[in-house]
């Protein structure tokens, strides 16, 4: 009960401030919260990153393993990206199988990277149709303060950029690990997702947890290093006008460029 009264009061305040173009934490409408990206935080994983976006925190690890290719896709390696909200991240999170929100989160993060062709999967084939290299990118949310889409996306991108790919050689047609030898991942571009919320027809960038609860709808737009748009996902109950969607794409391109500069600082980030 108390929670919902507090929530209602907070919503009122957020709406009142937005009328004047102000946000509850003092940010500008198109301003990201402070973003820090640390890589190599899980030395046993082939790649890893911890991302803090305001008070949202995500740890991401990349495991790189031999695998069989998907049927009909025998000429490319495997990329799979997941996300999980750990129960210690949020008093309302429940341990157990992912609900539809978490499934959407994981699929949107996965698609943003996949559709940008960030990783040239054709370079991860050992034996066509039989043996390929797989990158498994797992995001674990450790602290929740809204906008997991972007936090997980940045963590995934930083982990992939900075990962080291083990070397397998064919010995008698059997892929065999060459210990100690690694190479950089075949990355081509840096996709950057920018998530915007719409509250009473005002568009805000990177909504925090309080804003997330008040949003009428949201949109995540991912751009690549060329400044082109490579993935979109609209969510939430309300619709957008055409003009709002065009405006959101412009915000995504300009804000994405700034975030890309941060991600370029990551080891391996200057390549793309």
């Amino acid at each position, binding site marked *: 009960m108390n929670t919902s009264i507090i929530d209602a009061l907070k919503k009122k305040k957020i709406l009142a401030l937005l009328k004047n173009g102000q946000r509850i934490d003092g940010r500008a409408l198109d301003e990201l919260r402070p973003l820090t990206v640390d890589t190599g935080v899980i030395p046993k994983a082939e790649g890893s990153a911890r991302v803090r976006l305001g008070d949202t925190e995500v740890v991401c690890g990349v495991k790189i393993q031999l695998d069989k290719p998907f049927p009909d896709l025998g000429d490319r390696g495997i990329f799979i990206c997941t996300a999980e909200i750990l129960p210690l991240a949020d008093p309302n999170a429940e341990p157990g199988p992912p609900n539809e929100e978490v499934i959407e989160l994981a699929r949107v993060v996965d698609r943003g990277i996949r559709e940008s062709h960030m990783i040239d999967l054709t370079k991860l084939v050992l034996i066509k149709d039989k043996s390929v290299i797989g990158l498994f990118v797992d995001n674990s949310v450790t602290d929740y303060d809204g906008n997991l889409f972007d936090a997980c996306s940045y963590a995934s991108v930083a982990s992939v950029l900075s990962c080291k790919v083990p070397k397998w050689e064919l010995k008698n047609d059997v892929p065999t690990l060459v210990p100690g030898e690694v190479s950089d991942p075949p990355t081509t571009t840096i996709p950057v997702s920018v998530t915007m919320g719409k509250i009473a027809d005002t568009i805000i960038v990177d909504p925090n947890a309080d804003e997330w609860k008040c949003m009428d709808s949201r*949109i995540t737009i991912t751009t690549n290093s060329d400044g*082109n748009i*490579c993935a979109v996902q609209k969510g939430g109950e309300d619709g957008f006008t055409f003009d709002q969607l065009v405006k959101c794409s412009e915000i995504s391109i300009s804000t994405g460029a700034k975030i890309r500069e941060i991600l370029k600082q990551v080891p391996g980030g200057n390549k793309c």
Partner: protein
Amino acid sequence: MGVRKSDIVLLDDKGIRCDGRKIDEPRHIMIKAGVLKNANGSAYIEFGENKILAGVFGPRDVHPKHLANTDRGILRCRYHMQPFSVGERKNPAPSRREIEISKVIKEALESAVMLENFPRTVVDVYIEVLQADGGSRCAALDAAAVALADAGIPMRDMVSACAAGKVADTIVLDINNEEDQEGQADMPVAYMPNLEKITLVQLDGVLTAQEYKKCLETAINGCKIVYEVQKKALKDKFFGDNPQ
């Protein structure tokens, strides 16, 4: 997008696509309302090779009860593919893809349904894909919106959905399966034609900022074409002589 390449000519020099359509031409669309006896509302759509059935129950009591909302009704949506609806037999358990599509379809319909009119209840929308083709989520949405109207659920507006995409460096309406496999981008859009609001938009594939705008406009035009077919289906059901 675009992971497989083949010899198909996606767009010839006369602007004709691999299935004979023009750039701004949707596939054949047929919708029939009121096709099921048990459901409170229902619709069947054929959209290209898509064959999809939608059924609606409600407003009715919510089970389990703690899901009910005292302020307004809730909408639930399930998008589900039959095992025989695709090339390789599909496991009948819902995949993660189906769960995500169920969620975006629900969110595309929610603002059209006047849920504030029936607190504590639920409206269940069940969508069954009998045969899948490119653009099945848009076709599913189109059938679901007609089924909601057929059930007499009060609605603010219709919801009409159609995709646009990029094929052979050109923005085209309503991309089909081959264009989806070998094209450059696919953007499904749902639109409330009178309120002029976009309630679903997704994109897979790369577009410039200009192409993105063009693609949105093209898809919205498609939604308006679909809207006419939806209206006709409801008219046929309620006013037409409609021998089944």
